[in-house]
């Protein structure tokens, strides 16, 4: 009986109910889409970092501190023995200076094992055997410095003995990667090239590793994926705080909209409720009918949202959110020209449950006060 009356009230509400349901469905789809965008960004960024640089984790030479370029001179050791070459990618780091179009710019020099196939970094362009003094760089750095493939670039560095050396290098490749941390402020050279330049044969600063982790001595520190991604995750968490605020704001707006409608409807329908009381509907039944009416509008919103939102969100996840070119300069990892949302079942379920819970509360509150009135007062 309660369900029948609630449904009748909802359907009888006509345009008012329809608007309520539609607005709720918009809020629901927006929250899921908005959240999906950020989840997609995070997953794309983390996957990119893993595929392009981190692998399963990295062994760092014990003195290596990526935030202290002065540590680079000492933070290198001979590659430990017994490491499966196919499961690791070696890196040698130093600082240097480049002179693009006559300007001077400090830069990080990164030597990477040319023959590696473990990471997506296109190191084949840097093969030492096929010619020396080659480098590659990411498209963001190239764009910023106005450099193109085939350009020649003067590079200055300091070898292990402390003497400065300089040489002209050819830009053999400009790579496009969603990972900012292997692009900005650095140029990539072949590992053999770097070792020769620094006079540091066989030495590495760190190496990425995939597979069962070997136990190494105290000279090497294992950095897990989680540790290596922690900085990005911290940045992401800060951004998520903003997203969460939006999430709460949207929910709050939904709540206000429904509460407003419900309160208005309840007080407008006070006589109606009084009449129901006069006819014998008990307080508890009145609360149930009108609370259920709110809940039913939530469930209808889920249905309506699924109807128009699912194709929209799927299309959105396939084609992504196109970003303006200037976004490249924002220093955000994880996407190139578009953000591709990914939707988690958890957030879909959570949003649906949360919206319906809110609906229950905001439907319950106004009707509770009316149901406490005497029928005579409600009928006035």
């Amino acid at each position, binding site marked *: *009986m309660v369900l*029948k*009356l609630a449904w*009748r*009230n909802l*359907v*009888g*509400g*006509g345009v008012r109910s329809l608007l309520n349901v539609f607005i709720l469905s918009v809020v629901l789809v927006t929250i899921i889409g908005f959240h999906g965008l950020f989840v997609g960004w995070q997953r794309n960024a983390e996957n990119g970092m893993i595929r392009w640089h981190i692998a399963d984790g990295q062994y760092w030479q014990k003195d290596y501190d990526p935030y202290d370029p002065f540590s680079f001179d000492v933070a290198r050791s001979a590659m430990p023995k017994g490491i499966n070459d196919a499961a690791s990618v070696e890196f040698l780091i130093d600082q240097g200076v480049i002179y693009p179009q006559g300007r001077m710019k400090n830069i990080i020099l990164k030597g990477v094992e040319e023959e590696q196939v473990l990471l997506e970094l296109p190191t084949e362009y840097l093969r030492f055997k096929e010619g020396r003094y080659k480098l590659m760089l990411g498209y963001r750095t190239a764009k910023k410095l106005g450099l193109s493939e085939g350009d020649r670039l003067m590079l200055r560095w300091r070898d292990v003995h402390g003497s400065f050396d300089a040489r002209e290098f050819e830009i053999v490749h400009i790579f496009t990667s969603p990972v900012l941390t292997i692009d900005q402020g650095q140029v990539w050279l072949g590992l053999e090239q770097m070792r020769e330049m620094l006079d540091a044969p066989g030495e590495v600063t760190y190496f990425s590793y995939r597979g069962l982790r070997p136990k190494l001595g105290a000279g090497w520190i294992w950095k897990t994926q989680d540790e290596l991604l922690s900085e990005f995750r911290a940045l992401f968490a800060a951004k998520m705080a903003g997203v969460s605020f939006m999430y709460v704001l949207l929910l709050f707006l939904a709540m206000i909209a429904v509460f407003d409608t419900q309160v208005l409807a309840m007080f407008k329908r006070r*006589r*109606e409720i*009084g*009449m*129901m*009381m*006069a*006819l*014998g*509907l*008990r*307080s508890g*039944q009145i609360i149930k009918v009108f609370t259920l009416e709110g809940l039913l509008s939530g469930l209808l919103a889920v249905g309506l949202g699924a109807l128009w939102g699912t194709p929209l969100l799927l299309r959105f996840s396939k084609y992504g959110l196109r970003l303006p070119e200037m976004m490249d300069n924002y220093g955000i990892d994880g996407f190139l020209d578009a953000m591709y949302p990914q939707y988690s079942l958890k957030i879909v379920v959570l949003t649906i449950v949360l919206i319906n819970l809110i609906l229950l509360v905001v439907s319950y509150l106004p009707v509770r006060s009316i149901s406490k009135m*005497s*029928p*005579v007062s409600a*009928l006035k």
Partner: protein
Amino acid sequence: MEQLISIRNMFKDYPIGLGKFTALKDINLDFEAGEFSGIVGPSGSGKTTLLNIIGSLDVQSKGEVKVMGREVSELTRKEAARLRSEHIGFIFQTYNLLPVYTVFENVEFPLLLMDVKPGIRKEMVDKAIEWVGLKDKRKSRPAQLSGGECQRVAIARAIVKEPQIVLADEPTANLDAENSHHILRTMVELNEKLKTTFIFSTHDAKVIEYLRRKITLVDGRVVEDN
């Protein structure tokens, strides 16, 4: 005749500031099954208050009011709701129909509260709608009906469950003469057919014409009962 309502030494007070206003004073009345009676009197004489107490929508301040053998002031909200749901029908001056429901749904409402089975329910609703002559309007909503038609829906809703008592508070106040007479004739017929007790509150001469018993109330006191 079976006695349905018994009122003894009943007073009804309303607090006003630090004092009180006595709306009903020392009322003593009995109503028997099948009566077609009315409480008449000028506005503010306490007619509606008396009707509300009889209908267990309100309670007296002092005295005794027994409806169907139950003391109204001793009923819990739940018990009062059940009494109204099972034994009393209401007709109000402003119809008080549920605007989002159709005529059929409005009339069906009291039966839903009584958990009447769908098949029987439909039969009873159709019969009540037919009694009041609105068979062709069963799918209309109140906004699509005239005042007279709305009041007929209210009557159908009041009598659909065939209650022992129907309380009608100024049922013709918003109607023209023709509609008033039509509605009153309908109620007389129902009273004769179903033996339902009708108690009106009115100061409308048209209604008074139809009453078999008139109880005159002035300033909260019964001054005449014949």
